[in-house]
């Protein structure tokens, strides 16, 4: 599977996908850790992808999304943003609403 197909497969594998450095339990970057914390605080189910595991995807996703940094949070295949946007939306309640609408938060 070429790298664009791998990106699309990851994005369609779950309503909420976080491309991050490391894993939720062992994040390798403070910004990725904060994004995980925001999703967990919302009680969201999400899939995480460790970009260190796939260097080709790591570079290709930056071009695909026109977003040069990680983490990158996607809901229903759409880029929501990086750590700053996720945290801002967490603080004002938008994140939980978005995640709930995507069916990622248990009622």
């Amino acid at each position, binding site marked *: 599977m070429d790298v664009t197909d791998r990106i699309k497969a990851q994005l369609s594998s779950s309503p909420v996908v976080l491309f991050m450095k490391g894993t939720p339990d062992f994040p390798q970057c403070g910004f990725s850790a904060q994004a995980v914390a925001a999703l967990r605080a919302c009680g969201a189910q999400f899939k995480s992808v460790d970009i260190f595991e796939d260097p080709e995807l790591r570079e290709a996703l930056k071009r695909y999304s026109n977003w*040069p*940094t990680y983490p990158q949070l996607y809901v229903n295949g759409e*880029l929501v*943003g990086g750590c*700053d946007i996720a945290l801002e939306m967490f603080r004002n309640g938008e994140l939980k609403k978005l995640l709930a609408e995507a069916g990622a938060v248990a009622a």
Partner: protein
Amino acid sequence: MPDTAERIRAALERELVPAQLSVEDEGARHAGHPGARAGGHFRVRVVSERFRGLTRVARHRMVYAAVGPLLGHGVHALAIEALTEEEEMTL
């Protein structure tokens, strides 16, 4: 040669004509973080009318585009706050 924070400031002033701009070097705060060795951690706060009517993602893309070549070359991480003047006044 200007330092990285000054280059970020110059790029954002040129591209986004901000009414307010702050560029903070957060490098010291991340000492010991593995990525900190690769380059600086910076926090920018940009208040610009260029952001009016745009989504957060679009605004952040504009900031990344302005900083462009510095990303990965002196800038390891960029925390962004991107506001219009109206939003800044109502904070």
